[in-house]
């Protein structure tokens, strides 16, 4: 195949007031490999979907450090893209938002004739910071700290609901309800929406039926639009109200900006914390000595959380290349997509020696759980707080637990890595 050209990208204007689909071409499968890709760098690594990956995803991604070149061109039926696994390279890509842009970052289906951006994820500098400044006072460490008591009470209430049972499926009993109820609190939405939100999220994230996904997303869109209208009429202290009534440079946000912002927060907050908790509780259930270590080191909870986030990062980040660039001698061209394999970069032995070992006393280095650069996850501090509180309150009430005998642990395929169910007994 000849090198593709990119007429649209050169002239593409990203205007959040008039959002236009960027039309980044997608190449998929072995017949759509650009001619500048050397054959020896073409791989099908099986990330996210292969049986080898799903058998032990994080171990698999650690092994990518020596089983694949540091930069290779991954070919799948879904989408071909350069894959980067070195910590240094991922930092470089994510920190150069002018070269590697976050176009069409979300996979959820949008009407091209009524397009909207997921804000601030799909808006690049210089506009990006203006949106972040609206919500950063709440999502920064000091802002999240004010939510600590509320999150803690949610965690306690949820655990108290099943602690007497002596067993649970962690995912449905705790992993899902905690982040969803906290999200509803923060957004200023009613708690009685919890199970409905969980239902929509489950379908959107786990269904392979496109009609079902579109239906669930459609219902969520209708609900969120209604909530935005309500908060415009009756402002309160929640984030939906904050965004619905926010101003940038003296003007109110447009309806599309408000919707894209609220919708992005809804999607961004649901599955990642969920998967993170599920992965970590599986590890805890299999490592009672390490559970005891966490219990014995209450003052070190922040470094414990940071190390667990390194060891169990759950997702990936893809960018569109805006100009030709060489990395490690590899020619990467305008229009290519690059995916930073974040969990693998967290296992780069040059930065994290003996990378698979959970070591709470590692020197602090930049982990890639939340990416880096301007698009660093705005929910990172919330996620850290939720994980910290979950550990503290769970271990106070259920200090000894294990995987239910006979349970087979299966990992879910897809872009958010975690076990489908973690049956526990205590």
């Amino acid at each position, binding site marked *: 195949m000849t090198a593709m050209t990119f007429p649209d990208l050169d002239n593409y204007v990203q205007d959040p007031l008039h959002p236009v689909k960027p039309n980044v071409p997608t190449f998929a499968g072995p017949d759509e490999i650009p001619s500048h890709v050397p054959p020896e760098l073409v791989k099908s690594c099986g990330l996210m979907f292969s049986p080898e990956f799903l058998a032990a995803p994080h171990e698999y991604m650690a092994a990518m450090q020596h089983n694949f070149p540091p930069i290779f061109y991954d070919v799948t039926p879904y989408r071909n893209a350069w894959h980067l696994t070195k910590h240094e390279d991922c*930092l470089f890509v994510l*920190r150069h938002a002018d070269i590697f842009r976050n176009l069409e970052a979300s996979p959820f289906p949008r009407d091209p004739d009524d397009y909207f951006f997921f804000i601030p994820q799909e808006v690049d500098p210089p506009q990006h*910071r203006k949106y*972040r*400044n609206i919500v*950063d006072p709440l*999502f*920064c*460490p*000091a802002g999240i700290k004010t939510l600590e008591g509320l999150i803690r009470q949610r965690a306690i209430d949820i655990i108290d609901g099943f602690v007497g049972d002596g067993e649970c499926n962690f995912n449905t009993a705790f992993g899902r309800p905690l982040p969803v109820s906290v999200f509803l609190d923060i957004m200023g939405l009613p708690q009685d929406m919890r199970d409905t939100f969980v239902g929509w999220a489950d379908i959107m994230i786990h269904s392979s039926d496109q009609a079902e996904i579109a239906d669930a997303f459609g219902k969520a869109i209708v609900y969120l639009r209604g909530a935005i209208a309500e908060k415009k009429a009756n402002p309160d202290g929640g984030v939906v109200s904050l965004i619905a009534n926010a101003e940038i440079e003296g003007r109110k946000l447009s309806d599309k900006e408000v919707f894209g912002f609220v919708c992005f927060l809804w999607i961004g907050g649901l599955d990642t914390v969920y998967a993170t908790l599920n992965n970590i509780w599986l590890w805890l259930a299999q490592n009672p000595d390490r559970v005891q270590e966490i219990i014995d080191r209450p003052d070190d909870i922040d*470094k414990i959380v*940071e190390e667990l986030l390194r060891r169990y990062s759950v997702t990936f980040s893809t960018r569109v290349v805006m100009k030709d660039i060489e990395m490690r001698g590899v020619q990467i061209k305008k229009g290519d997509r690059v995916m930073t394999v974040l969990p693998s970069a967290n296992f780069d032995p040059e930065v994290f020696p003996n990378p698979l070992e959970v070591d709470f006393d590692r*020197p*602090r*280095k*930049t*982990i890639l759980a*939340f990416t*880096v*650069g*301007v698009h*660093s996850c*705005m929910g*990172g*501090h919330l996620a*850290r707080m939720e994980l910290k509180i979950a550990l503290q309150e769970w271990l106070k009430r259920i200090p000894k637990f294990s995987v239910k005998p006979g349970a087979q642990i299966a990992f879910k395929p897809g872009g958010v890595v975690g076990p489908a169910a973690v049956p526990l007994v205590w």
Partner: protein
Amino acid sequence: MPQVTYIQFDGSKQTVDVPVGENVMRGALYNGIDGIAGECGGAPSCATCHCYVDDAWTAKVGGPDGDVEAELLEAAAAEIKATSRLSCQIVMSEALDGLVVHLPETQY
């Protein structure tokens, strides 16, 4: 409200109000001051809000706030000096009114 003066690597200066309790990294971001990335948001888990505290202020501001800040500073892109701090870890107080920080050539 206390003020902070940020001096860019090229010598240009900006002085802005930063409320008591807010940190020096956020003061830059909210006021559109270049030269501080603050990409992790103050976790702290990066070193992209690196600054040099002006010599006149080092005694009041003090050195790195524990091992974590010191370890992160080791990975800062620009030269590390005795006055290096992560600006997200400098929290404003009335006593720091007039603080002057110098920004490094790069945060990456």
